[in-house]
């Protein structure tokens, strides 16, 4: 929810969308909107710029990544060798039918699970080489997670949820509260700092989760079906928020999704099927496709 003030009559307008004219005096609001958007961008860039020292071109690389689950006698191969390079600052979507291994890949990249074979490099460090401490450090500082089911801690307020990773990172308490407030403000929940998750709507909970994923200025945000439990409009808002953050702060976003709305904002789309990369599309190519399709009579 953003607040705008009409430049001519001083009317206060609260909305999540766009206001072109003031509802009271019909004055043009475009200037105000643009100004607030610019302020938001600046704040985002300040808050979560990727300040890691190393600047490898590829922030995530996987080589022959395999993961199989043993179910009794049977061996289920969830991933059958994934080679994937993700550029720094990219917005990458992973698409595929249910059971194709998206979540499995997400868990492996995020260091939540160990591959059966192959390796995954983050900033050119092999995840398999990391000790438990280093892995926790990486989960805390380098990667932010967003889940389909929001996964906020139910007994904590929005602000506490956002500051929890900062506690782990050893941030001072004043700085922490300040930053938590700013992040929640950034996702449009500045007025709901002390609400518990069950007092928030799904979309609002997911916004808190987005703010939390940015807590320690991660280089990568991993999102597993972030819009899966949201209605169309709310899902779109979350996607736009993610895209905005991606553009303004240069954070790399990797998102597993069914959601076709994601295609618009993705730089690349990786289609996986049965645990293998089926094809990789670039946005330019999709634009081209849509263009030719639209051009046909």
């Amino acid at each position: 929810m953003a607040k705008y003030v009409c430049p001519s009559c001083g009317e206060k307008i609260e909305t999540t969308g766009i206001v072109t004219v003031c509802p009271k005096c019909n004055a043009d609001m475009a200037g105000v909107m643009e100004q607030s958007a610019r302020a938001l961008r600046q704040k985002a860039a300040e808050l979560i710029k990727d300040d890691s020292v190393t600047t490898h071109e590829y922030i995530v690389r996987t080589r022959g990544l395999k993961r199989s689950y043993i179910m009794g006698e049977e061996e289920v191969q969830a991933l059958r060798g994934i080679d994937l390079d993700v550029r720094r600052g990219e917005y990458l979507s992973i698409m595929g039918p249910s059971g194709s291994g998206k979540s499995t890949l997400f868990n492996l990249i995020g260091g939540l699970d160990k591959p059966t074979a192959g390796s995954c490099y983050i900033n050119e460090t092999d995840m398999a080489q990391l000790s438990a401490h280093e892995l926790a450090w990486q989960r805390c500082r380098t990667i932010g997670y967003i889940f389909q089911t929001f996964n906020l801690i139910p007994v904590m307020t929005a602000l506490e949820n956002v500051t929890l990773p900062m506690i782990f990172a050893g941030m001072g308490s004043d700085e922490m509260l300040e930053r938590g407030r700013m992040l929640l403000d950034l996702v449009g929940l500045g007025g709901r700092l002390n609400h518990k998750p069950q007092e928030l709507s799904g979309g609002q909970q997911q916004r808190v989760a987005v703010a939390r994923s940015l807590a320690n200025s991660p280089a990568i945000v991993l999102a597993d079906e972030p819009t899966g439990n949201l209605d169309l409009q709310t899902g779109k808002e979350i996607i736009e928020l993610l895209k905005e953050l991606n553009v303004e702060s240069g954070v790399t976003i990797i998102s597993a999704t069914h959601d076709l709305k994601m295609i618009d904002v993705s730089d690349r789309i990786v289609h996986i099927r049965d645990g293998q990369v089926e094809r990789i599309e670039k946005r330019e190519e999709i634009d081209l496709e849509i263009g030719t399709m639209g051009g046909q009579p």
Partner: protein
Amino acid sequence: MQSTRKCWSRAELDPRLSACGLRLVVKAVMMDVKKLAKVAGGGGQAAPQIQKQINLPWPDAFRISLRSVLLRLGRAGIAATGIVLGVAFLTYVWSDRIFSDGVEKARLAQEQTLAAAAESVRKPAAAPEAEQGAPDQPVAPDASQSTKAEKDARQLWLVVMSLLVCGIGITNAMLMSVTERFQEIGTMKCLGALDAFIVRLFLIESVVIGVLGSAAGIIIGILFVLLYYGIKEGFSVTAKVDWGSLVMVMLYGLVIGTVLALLSAIPPAIRAAQMPPAAALRSEI
């Protein structure tokens, strides 16, 4: 129920698991000891290492756990019931003895003063009678002492058994609470929590439950004794009781209840901490 069995059998089948779990508990406590030592002995040098350190300060851990208990009083209540009952029983048994001793002592004192008064009244007349009464007195306490010792042993046995049952009750309730919170635990791990943090959070939670439960148990136990003796002997009985030892009994109750809660929470805490984050996130979906 089922979850308890599963955990125990897992621990039995795989000795590595329990050994590893114990190491975790030690780690949860030692981490801060080590950090203190590091800071004490030239903190400046260790700085670059500390930079990559993930930590959960005790005050924050305490705040989170306390919040978790207070906002889930229902679940905490189930875990605490065992402690409340166990400590109430223990307090009852121990303070019962203090009360009965107090009453006995008061009666003896009264008898003595009465006897003295009687003696002073019929001193000249009934000298042989007093001699007759004298040999009786040592016999009666002797008999009551032996039955008393037997009773004490039986009561100790009962107390130990009841505490054991309470402990298992807490373990079970905490295991249920762990199962309920798989997702929460997994999320915490995604946010950078070490296994040791999870152990720490659950142990603190259990200590909080232990302290609250024991306090309630002590109050209930003392109330029962007070009521019992108050009705039997009149409420003036409170004046005759040794309040010093009664306070000691309360302290013992508190300590025993808390330690019991802490010990019973170790298996569930280990189980929670050892869960791989991916599994924890899956379980509720």
